[in-house]
């Protein structure tokens, strides 16, 4: 087994312990013994990593400010992802940050890697509660390697969501999975070597560990 390093970016966005543990466990169960998971705030480690994960919990503007507060981090991500073509996974607000801009509380620029806005979820049924919180099923918009072998659809596995805002991709084929919550909600996006999930794979038990294992094998 070849060795690889996965950088999970630590920029002060909540606790990342469970993300690290979930990636370690998925690597172990997938037999990827050479995989090293590094929780890091060091842009050089991110620039040199084989795979990069951007988690994110909290308000959009706060997360963006946290990312910008680490000198050189956004540049390191750009280098690794667009220069070197390394696989990248954004989770929750980490996925939303891929968009052009976020509209939570205040308008905040995103990374612009997946063009589109992050706006409030507006379910057609007013009885549906916001945040969209809990376990929901996924529906494929198109097939993608990150979901290979994962049962989706009404009888499929569940993913854990907790969010009030969602990414609406400007290019429809950037959407990979959607959830239903009084209308479609973007659940996963991907373009080239960049992917993101609105749900939390690290909290999504079987589906989550399978998706993380797919990410660790992914050769975009």
């Amino acid at each position, binding site marked *: 087994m070849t060795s690889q390093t996965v950088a999970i970016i630590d920029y002060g966005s909540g606790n990342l312990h*469970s993300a690290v543990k979930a990636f370690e466990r998925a690597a172990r169960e997938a037999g990827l013994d050479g995989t090293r998971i590094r929780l890091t705030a060091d842009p050089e480690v991110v620039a040199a990593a084989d795979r990069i994960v951007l988690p994110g919990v909290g308000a959009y503007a706060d997360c963006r400010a946290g990312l910008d507060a680490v000198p050189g981090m956004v540049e390191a991500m750009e280098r690794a992802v667009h220069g070197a073509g390394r696989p990248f996974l954004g989770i929750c607000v980490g996925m939303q940050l891929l968009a052009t801009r976020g509209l939570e509380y205040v308008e905040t620029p995103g990374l612009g890697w997946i063009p589109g806005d992050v706006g409030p979820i507006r379910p057609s049924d007013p009885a549906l509660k916001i945040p969209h919180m809990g376990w929901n099923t996924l529906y494929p918009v198109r097939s993608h390697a990150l979901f290979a072998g994962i049962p989706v659809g009404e009888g499929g596995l569940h993913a854990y969501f907790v969010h009030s805002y969602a990414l609406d991709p400007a290019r429809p084929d950037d959407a990979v999975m959607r959830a239903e919550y009084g209308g479609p909600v973007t659940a996963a996006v991907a373009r080239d070597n960049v992917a993101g999930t609105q749900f939390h794979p690290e909290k999504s038990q079987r589906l989550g560990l399978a998706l993380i294992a797919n990410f660790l094998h992914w050769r975009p």
Partner: protein
Amino acid sequence: MLKTRIIPCLDVKDGRVVKGVRFEALRDAGDPVEAAKAYDAAGADELCFLDITASREARGTLLDVVSRTAEACFMPLTVGGGVRGVEDVRALLLAGADKVAINTAAVKDPDLVARAAEKFGAQCIVVAIDAKRVSGPGEPARWEIFTHGGRDPTGTDAVAFARLVAEKGAGELLVTSMDRDGTRSGYDLGLTRAISDAVAVPVIASGGVGGLDDLVAGVAEGGASAVLAASIFHFGQASIAQAKAHMAEAGLAMRLDGAGGARA
């Protein structure tokens, strides 16, 4: 389709699981980390720790329990009890909690909810509302907030308070009937319904579960998005799988693929 959540609640004191009858007589049901692992494997949708003595005792033990639980379980964890300020919220989130429940401090200072939500996001701020029915027979139903394990009345109307903290940025409300807690006579469905109808955020029904029909009623009649229970699960009266099967038979949308925990 979004599923109704079942949330076992572990009342924790000095790092051990207890369940008080009306928060007074306490029984010891074991190590919270072991219990959390068991519920993870049993397919619970989330887990809740309430440190019932935290407002009076040290915090270190709780943070240690939270951190060890987060390392062992890949399920969402809510932790409450003794949260007084933004720093307490931060400490619990850093220890591994996914959501933090604020109780007494939100009653004293509702703006704490706004400060915490702006800093950490509404999705991780739960306000725990402990209420007792204060209306007499024949009067329109009214509930008041009580603090300190249901001992101290506040004079604050529970439904008005629920509206206020939801506006301030609470992402979810944990609504416990202090009349029913520990009685096994079912949720106070009038309370659950009144609050659920008053706010746009999800409501967790809590306090008084005696059997599986109570869980169904919490959703079907109370309008809750999630149901919380302790003793019926802790003391083996029902398993999570039995509860889910029962609720699914009653027509509620349940996640039935969770058993086996995070095993891929």
